[in-house]
């Protein structure tokens, strides 16, 4: 499935549709939001993509622990990195949006804090992996932390911000994306276009990186890289 073409073409079409319909299509006129409401197609859809990539990463971590297949560890690592990229993008687009609607890039809102914490949790995952040199151990402990972190992440960004007062839609129990936030003109761009479009782009980037990582490891298995060879000689 990974090497097939159709979903990459679909991804391109969906993103072109998102950009054209997103910038030219009609949007409801809202006070304060005005035209910034178009950011929904980018900011919210990128968070969706991040959550999907992190979820795939956890599934591969579980599969690694069950099978000890080294390939799944590479999958989990690269999906985490892909998710981080989309998390940073979602955070940046969100703070630009906040600049024009809430008045500042950063206002210590529970949702913003939750987003930064989510990114820090996964950066810590990379730090943890890099602190070990043994490949099996790194994979196993990394997988354990990844599962634990994901389970802690869900309340951090899905439950706790909803219990607190927030400027962000979706606070105090009411979910965002309900009928008086967006209308049907926006919904036909958001759900079929932006969400799957950005998600597929994330998966595409990640699969490329996975293939690169596997090729690099195969090459290094045959000829150790210069710095590794030096390390072996000094040891």
């Amino acid at each position, binding site marked *: 499935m990974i090497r097939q073409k159709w979903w990459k073409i679909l991804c391109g079409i969906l993103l072109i549709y998102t950009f054209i319909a997103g910038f030219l299509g009609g949007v409801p006129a809202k006070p304060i939001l005005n035209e910034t409401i178009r950011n929904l197609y980018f900011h919210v859809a990128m968070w969706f993509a991040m959550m999907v990539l992190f979820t795939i990463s956890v599934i591969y971590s579980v599969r690694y*622990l069950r099978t000890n297949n080294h390939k799944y560890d590479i999958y989990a690592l690269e999906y985490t990195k892909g998710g981080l990229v989309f998390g940073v993008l979602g955070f940046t687009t969100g703070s630009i949006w906040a600049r024009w609607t809430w008045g500042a890039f950063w206002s210590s809102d*529970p949702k913003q*804090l*939750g987003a930064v*914490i989510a990114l*820090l*949790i996964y950066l*810590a995952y990379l*730090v*943890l992996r890099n*602190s*070990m040199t043994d490949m099996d*151990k790194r994979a*196993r*402990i990394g*997988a*354990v*932390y990844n*599962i*634990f*972190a994901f*389970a*802690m992440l869900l*309340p*951090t960004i899905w*439950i*706790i911000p909803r*219990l*607190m007062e927030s400027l962000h839609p979706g606070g105090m129990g009411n979910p965002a994306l309900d009928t008086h936030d967006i209308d049907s003109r926006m919904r036909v761009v958001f759900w079929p276009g932006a969400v799957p479009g950005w998600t597929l782009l994330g998966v595409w980037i990640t699969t490329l990186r996975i293939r690169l990582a596997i090729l690099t490891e195969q090459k290094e298995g045959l000829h150790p890289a210069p710095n590794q060879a030096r390390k072996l000689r000094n040891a």
Partner: protein
Amino acid sequence: MGEPESTVWKGLFWMMQLFICVNAVAKSFLQEGKGRLLYFYTIAGPKDFILSKLLFNALLMIVMALVSLGLFVLMLGNPMPNPLSFVAISCLGGMSLSLVFTFLAAIAARAQQNAALMAILGFPLIIPQLLLLSKISNIAFEDVLQGGLATMSAVLAGLDVMIVALSLILFPFLWKD
């Protein structure tokens, strides 16, 4: 000097708990010698081992929280209208902090790193709990009760149950070498 305002008091208290927890709980795994771990390996299974660690650290942190609560009231005064409910909240808080850090200490110990790694792993994961705790503390600090605080306490308790369950499931993978 005078006594600090109630928000400062509350913030100081939870920050203090965080650092007590990092130091107290980190010792339980990071100062375990190789020989002693080998001994544990021969007499107990991974689930018994992590369960006993969780239990011991939870008790330790509850005692620590109560001692520091006593010292705070003694030295910084008592800004709370409902001090009794804060005793219960600090027990719940100390326990929640200790559960997260026990499992992270287990991970950090397997990575054969110092306590610095545990801080890097722990701080992002613990901030949501601290946010919840400082909100829940309002039960003791304010005469007028806000809505939703009972829900937050339930979320925190649910989080604790989840952490224990995850530790039981995941620790066996850290145990065998």
